[in-house]
């Protein structure tokens, strides 16, 4: 591609991304814009996990814990719960920092663990965080237990709150639209960070460690430091996404941070194409949007063909979703959009 063509593609996709919420909002309704907002949050999360699993090759089944830490930090610093109302440009970085610290906290004891032992410990760590959030309402009420935290401040820039619909020159700008742009900007930031990391010295060190830890350390890499860095940087983007989630929802409870969520994010990374940034983005978008499409399609389809509901749509939706996950993995075990390198490895393995 020459420079002009590249610029053309860039401008076209920028315009497409800029008008997307309005096109979707006016044709499919604002609930779909909301789904797109969530897709962006999941892109951030999946890219964060991709650093840990895809780049550094450390299987993490408790990634949602960092999302939870980010969300709770934001919620506690901006809600009537403690009556603290810090602006978002302080509480989101603080949340990200807290998440990164938790990343180090998790990373330090598990430095020696490998493979499935690492997976089960990270899983346990995720559960521990969730159980604490569920129970830290007594004797001192910190997290408000299973009820969660309500009335979290929306993001405010200057005197302008993103929680209310505003009128711009006769144009209704909904919260979902405003959050879309905020999420888009931050997602682009995370994508750039991921790319810069991938091609940096650290990124190459991660790949070296993933492929052969002993050889990597023989080449002078400090395995301890780069492992901890992978955990901390992955957790950082998880924490940012968590803070945004809290502001966007206005309500969080431990229920949103279960093991199933961790597994879903891992599925996004693996189904998309582990270690390949465009693939991971695709995986996150597809896995967020597919269940919503199924939700819209299954109910009416049954009414249309049978005249009544045969199967509870929620049930059928998850059934098909699970089946789709199995079939996708069986037909494309390398992911939907793998990197060239991984694809080549797969072809080598097939030849045996």
């Amino acid at each position, binding site marked *: 591609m020459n420079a002009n063509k590249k610029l053309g593609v860039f401008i076209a996709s920028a315009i497409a991304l800029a008008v997307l919420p309005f096109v979707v909002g006016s044709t499919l309704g604002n609930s779909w814009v909301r789904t797109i907002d969530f897709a962006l949050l999941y892109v951030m999360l999946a890219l964060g996990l991709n650093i840990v699993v895809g780049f550094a090759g450390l299987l993490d089944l408790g990634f949602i814990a960092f999302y939870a830490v980010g969300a709770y930090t934001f919620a506690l610093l901006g809600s009537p719960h403690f009556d603290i109302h810090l602006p978002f440009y302080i509480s989101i970085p603080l949340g990200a920092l807290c998440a990164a610290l938790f990343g180090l906290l998790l990373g330090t004891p598990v430095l020696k663990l490998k493979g499935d032992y690492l*997976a089960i*410990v990270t899983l*346990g760590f995720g*559960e521990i965080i969730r*159980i604490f959030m569920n129970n830290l309402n007594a004797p001192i009420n910190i997290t408000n237990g299973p009820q969660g935290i309500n009335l979290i401040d929306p993001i405010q820039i200057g005197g302008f709150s993103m929680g209310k619909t505003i009128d711009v020159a006769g144009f209704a700008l909904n919260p979902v639209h405003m959050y879309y742009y905020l999420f888009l900007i931050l997602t682009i930031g995370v994508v750039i960070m991921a790319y810069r990391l991938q091609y940096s010295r650290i990124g190459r060190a991660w790949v070296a460690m993933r492929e052969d830890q002993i050889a990597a350390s023989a080449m002078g890499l400090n395995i301890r430091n780069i492992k901890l860095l992978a955990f901390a940087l992955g957790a950082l983007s998880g924490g940012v996404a968590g803070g945004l989630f809290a502001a966007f929802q206005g309500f969080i409870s431990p229920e949103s941070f279960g093991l199933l969520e961790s597994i879903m994010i891992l599925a996004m990374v693996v189904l998309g194409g582990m270690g390949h940034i465009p693939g991971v983005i695709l995986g996150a978008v597809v896995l967020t949007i597919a269940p919503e499409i199924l939700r819209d399609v299954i109910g009416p389809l049954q009414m249309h063909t049978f005249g009544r509901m045969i199967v*509870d749509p929620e049930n059928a939706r998850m059934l098909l979703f699970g089946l789709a996950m199995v079939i996708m993995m069986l037909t494309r075990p390398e992911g939907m959009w793998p990197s060239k390198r991984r694809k080549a490895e797969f072809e080598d393995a097939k030849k045996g």
Partner: protein
Amino acid sequence: MDIFLQQILNGLVLGSIYALIALGYTMVYGIMGLINFAHGEVVMFGAMVTITVISLLTSAGIVLPGPILVLIGLLVAIPACMLLGFTIERVAYRPLRNAPRLAPLITAIGLSIVLQQAAILIWGRNYIPFPPILDHDTIDVFGATITQLQVGIVVLCLALMVGLLIVVEKTKLGRAMRATSQNPAVAGLMGVNVNTIISATFVIGSALGAIAGVMVATNYDQAHYYMGFMIGLKAFTAAVLGGIGNLGGAVAGGILLGIIESLGAGYIGDLTGGFLGSHYQDIFAFMVLIAVLIFRPSGLLGEKMADRA
């Protein structure tokens, strides 16, 4: 002292069930090196099928002693779960045998979702009570109590574990299983049909899982489409705690985890001056796991594995 003994007894019952399920995980892991995430769902199906069979029999007006009814239920549930385990391996794992490790993990998770949803379709979303056909007579043990049913559970678990050990150590099938776990390619060259052995492993593990499912259902007097998830997670934790791939380790890990959990639930309030309550029971299990793995990175009885490039 009574509380202590009581918690040890409760832990022993819980732990032997964990151990039985953990064996299913560890056998599959030992042979194929993969976490069979759908094993918890097999456990759940075992419980559900047994309850269905028992309810059908009792509603048909057949009057039989409780244990016989449970036995009949098991005779249906065990083959059903064996078939389920066999199908899981055939559909989700065999095509991916040479793929990287994460691919079968994702198919297993997908299958877990499918099986849970299938269970909702068949049995609904509500808790299903276990039919009140077993009596809960208690036995007094130095001031602590245990029901006859629980004694039965522990004895049956131990018998099954010993049986499995005999199969693995003494029979031709067991030798083939051990050979396959050490090196599938070479085992194949020696005339072992690797595919059959792997299927057999899944089938045996699923049979144990079905029995464990019924034990869970009788112990808590209920079953639920989601029950397989948490119990599977605990059992897998137990398998890792003991050193995954090691049968003795799974048994030790399971019983240890059960005892730690119930002791934790009984004493955590006193230990922390009432700061942490018994709902932190699950934390105890994971804390112990993390502590053990820090000092013994391949579990209690796991062998130190050489690095494979």
